[in-house]
């Protein structure tokens, strides 16, 4: 087992496109790190660089103590689970798992032992003679996992492994991956665009945007204190409400555009006296009486999910009207056209510099 | 379309393409360029001296009435062969697509002449039309027509057209049937609900959707009629009587191998090359456009 380290890693494609703008980070031995970001942010490229499927333009990638930039994928002692599983369609499940071991000249009985063990862990015992074409999506996913496990690698690399499964199976497999990784204690790097997957699986998260790691941290740290507007908007569902405004003259609060009263939560001193961006998550708005309210919202649409309801509305006196989403208890009935008076949980207001998008602290 | 992952060895790929490239260079590119070069030369009868004459061979070729005749005959032959075999094949395929039972059996029974060599196909029809013992010649005589492809140029031409078409129907049938079966049933059903009768349906819905296949086949059939039919002519009529079945490929062969006119034969080769290249380019441009369709 070993950790993983990125030192000033950059990637520039031959056509001049810069995919990765310099990543520095260390993954501890046995840690589960999820790289999350929108499509095209460079997360898959980063993973493929670790696998050795893409060259590193600049910087260094280390697995354990060793620089691996120049090593062939097979020599890096990693295993990868692909989005489409990439199972060899003409080989049985057993052969799919054994192929890499055979290429490494692992003794025959050792191969049999490891495959049997992995098959046991993944409940694939009855399927070893089948071809991938005869398996369901979930079973194929397990075989792909099995192929990774039998290698007993230094690190697992997952490239959106659950995105081809239906919603129910995805939740189930997510739990299984987490359990398996705990049991094996293998360092894992996991790429996804799904922030729920990211939050639930990760020991630590890397939120990437346009080739840059916007924030690295534990999931709840990132949720509680997003470092940038991008991270704030990307992590958390439904997304955080962003309301532009101006810092009040005495610095004791913020005047939100389209709201006729001052939000009485003091921005950090570094905010100065100019424009500011205020972020409030839908779950941190609470209906109160008119007098106590920080803002009023005209309800446009209600999505009742049962346990809670998502209310989409517009600031009541907002002119053009800034959109606001509120998460309410499912028991509460709200109708379109109704005006909601909302208070804000003071510890959960985020302030950002509107120019560079950075969190103000 | 390109693959993302590639192996980064250098010597291996060159080794892998080498056989194909070497054979292509030695047996295709080099001879073709020889033909191109020789088409610009005039050699004396003994092949001892040659003289560079620029396009004289081509000028001679296109002012030779025999060559122009042969060109015209080839066009007639190709058009007739392509027309006949495409028409019959389309008709049969439309019928086979209609019958639910036995379509596969019909396919098997119609498709096998594809495997018959053009030369053999020629010999079979040559035999059936043999003026003294042939079954079909006898039948025609009974109907009042005196068939003799040894003497009558038109009869000879009909013979090679029939033999060439008979063999080619199988190929066209296969593609038309595949094309017809690929047309979504729901489309035909929608047309039926819109009130189109079978015949109308065929011309307004099915045939337009089949047109890429038809176009592809047209080009293939012209190429077939131009080049692959050499065996039919050579094995049966030998270009006769009185050159009435001397199509261009046969003429290249006979002028070069029997007449030993190197420059003239080379010039003919170059003209034929131009024909194939035109057809191929045409086909590929069309296929590119088809992708958008």
């Amino acid at each position: 087992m070993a950790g993983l380290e990125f030192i000033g890693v950059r990637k520039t494609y031959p056509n001049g496109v810069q995919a990765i703008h310099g990543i520095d980070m260390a993954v501890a031995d046995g840690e589960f790190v999820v790289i999350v970001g929108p499509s095209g942010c460079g997360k898959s490229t980063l993973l493929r660089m670790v696998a050795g499927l893409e060259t590193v333009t600049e910087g260094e990638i280390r697995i354990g103590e060793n620089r691996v930039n120049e090593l062939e994928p097979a020599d890096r002692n990693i295993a990868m689970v692909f989005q489409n599983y990439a199972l060899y369609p003409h080989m049985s499940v057993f052969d799919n798992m054994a192929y890499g071991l055979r290429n490494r000249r692992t003794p025959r009985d050792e191969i049999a032992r490891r495959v049997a063990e992995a098959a046991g862990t993944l409940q694939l015992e009855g399927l070893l003679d089948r071809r991938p074409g005869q398996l369901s999506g979930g079973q194929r996913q397990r075989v792909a996992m099995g192929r990774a496990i039998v290698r007993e690698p230094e690190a697992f690399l997952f490239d959106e492994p659950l995105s081809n499964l239906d919603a129910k199976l995805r939740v189930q497999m997510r739990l299984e991956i987490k359990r398996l990784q705990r049991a094996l204690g293998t360092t894992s790097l996991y790429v996804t665009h799904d922030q729920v997957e990211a939050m639930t699986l990760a020991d630590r998260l890397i939120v990437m945007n346009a080739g840059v790691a916007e924030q690295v941290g534990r999931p709840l740290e990132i949720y509680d204190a997003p470092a940038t507007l991008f991270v704030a908007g990307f992590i958390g569902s439904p997304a955080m409400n962003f309301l532009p405004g101006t810092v009040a003259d005495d610095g004791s609060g913020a005047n939100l555009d389209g709201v006729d009263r001052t939000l009485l939560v003091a921005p950090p001193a570094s905010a100065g006296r100019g424009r500011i961006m205020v972020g409030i998550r839908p779950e941190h708005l609470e209906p109160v009486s008119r007098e106590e309210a920080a803002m009023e919202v005209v309800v446009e649409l209600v999505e009742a999910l049962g346990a809670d309801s998502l209310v989409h509305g517009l600031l009541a006196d907002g002119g053009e009207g800034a959109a606001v989403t509120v998460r309410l208890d499912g028991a509460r009935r709200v109708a379109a056209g109704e005006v909601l008076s909302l208070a804000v949980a003071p510890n959960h207001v985020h302030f950002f510099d509107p120019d560079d998008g950075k969190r103000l602290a | 379309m390109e693959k993302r992952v590639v192996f980064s060895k250098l010597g291996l790929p060159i080794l892998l393409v080498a056989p194909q490239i070497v054979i292509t260079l030695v047996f295709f590119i080099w001879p073709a360029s020889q033909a191109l070069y020789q088409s610009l030369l005039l050699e004396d009868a003994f092949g001892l001296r040659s003289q560079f004459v620029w396009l004289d061979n081509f000028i001679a070729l296109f002012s030779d009435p025999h060559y122009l005749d042969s060109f015209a005959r080839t066009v007639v032959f190709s058009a007739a062969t392509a027309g006949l075999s495409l028409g019959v094949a389309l008709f049969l395929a439309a019928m086979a697509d209609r019958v639910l039972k036995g379509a596969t059996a019909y396919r098997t029974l119609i498709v096998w002449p594809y495997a018959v060599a053009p030369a053999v196909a020629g010999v079979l029809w040559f035999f059936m039309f043999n003026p003294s013992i042939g079954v079909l010649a006898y039948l025609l005589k009974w109907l009042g027509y005196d068939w003799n492809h040894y003497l009558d140029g038109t009869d000879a031409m009909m013979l090679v057209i029939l033999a060439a078409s008979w063999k080619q129907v199988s190929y066209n049938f296969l593609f038309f049937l595949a094309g017809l079966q690929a047309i979504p049933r729901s489309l035909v059903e929608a047309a039926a609900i819109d009130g189109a009768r079978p015949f109308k349906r065929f011309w307004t819905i099915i045939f337009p959707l089949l047109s890429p296949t038809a176009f592809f086949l047209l080009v293939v059939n012209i190429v077939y009629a131009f080049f692959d039919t050499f065996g039919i002519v050579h094995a049966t009529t030998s270009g006769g009587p009185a050159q009435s079945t001397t199509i261009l490929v046969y003429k290249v062969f006979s002028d070069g191998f029997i007449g030993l006119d190197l420059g003239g034969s080379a010039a003919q080769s170059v003209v034929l090359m131009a024909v194939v290249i035109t057809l191929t380019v045409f086909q590929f441009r069309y296929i590119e456009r088809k992708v958008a369709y």
Partner: protein
Amino acid sequence: MVENRPWLTVFSHVVLCLGVLVTALPIWIAFVASTHPADSMLSGRTPLLPGGHMIENYATVLGSGVRAAGSIPVGTMLWNSFVMALMIAVGKIAISIIAAYAIVYFRFPLRRTCFWVIFITLMLPVEVRILPTFGVVASLGMLNSYWGLSVPLIASATATFLFRQFFLTVPEELAEAARIDGAGPFKFFRDILLPLSRTNIAALFVILFIFGWNQYLWPLLVTTDEGYYTIVMGIQRMLQAEDAEPAWHEIMATSMLAMLPPVLVVVFMQRLFVKGLIEQEK
């Protein structure tokens, strides 16, 4: 079909049966002729029902050949055709698949040039370069040999494109997974790509075997030694008999034998054959 029109269905069947009959007619006549003795042919017209000389006629052509064609036993010609067809089919597949592999999975200098050189062969059928190609083969001393019969015909753009097309549809992740599993270019080709290409190879083999078997002009040029005659061109030699009337019963027996192997291949491997043909369109 969509609505029920019995008369149209009957009509379709009638047309198709007629098509089948016309298709089969030449073969039936040839078969009938091949079962009669020489004199029943000279009596004026061909009989329409088989005669009783089938075994004699076939035994004669197979064993001792037809006088007019230099008495080469048809058995020898069949063997020559078989060897030539096999060499062409196997050769074409072998060199095409490795060339396609190189072009799809590697980046190397002159890659595009190679692609175009192969592409050009599409535009240069034997028929348009008869004399100079003959010259090359003659100067390489390949006349009257199996090599001379097959090698000049085994460069094929269509087969290369077919494999290229197929390789491009193989998911890239498969090659990546194989790399992670420690398979180099050779192992990847042998363990993954080749097994995946099985049906394509088989389909192509059927087409190319027929293509090779039916070659006519090329064997005509490069064989002067009767021992290398192939059956398809051998028939022509029999027709060019010096005496007035060809020996039709023997020629037809030979024609039947010449058709039999490729026709059997088409009928019994129809699925593969259809696949092979249709894929060429793409």
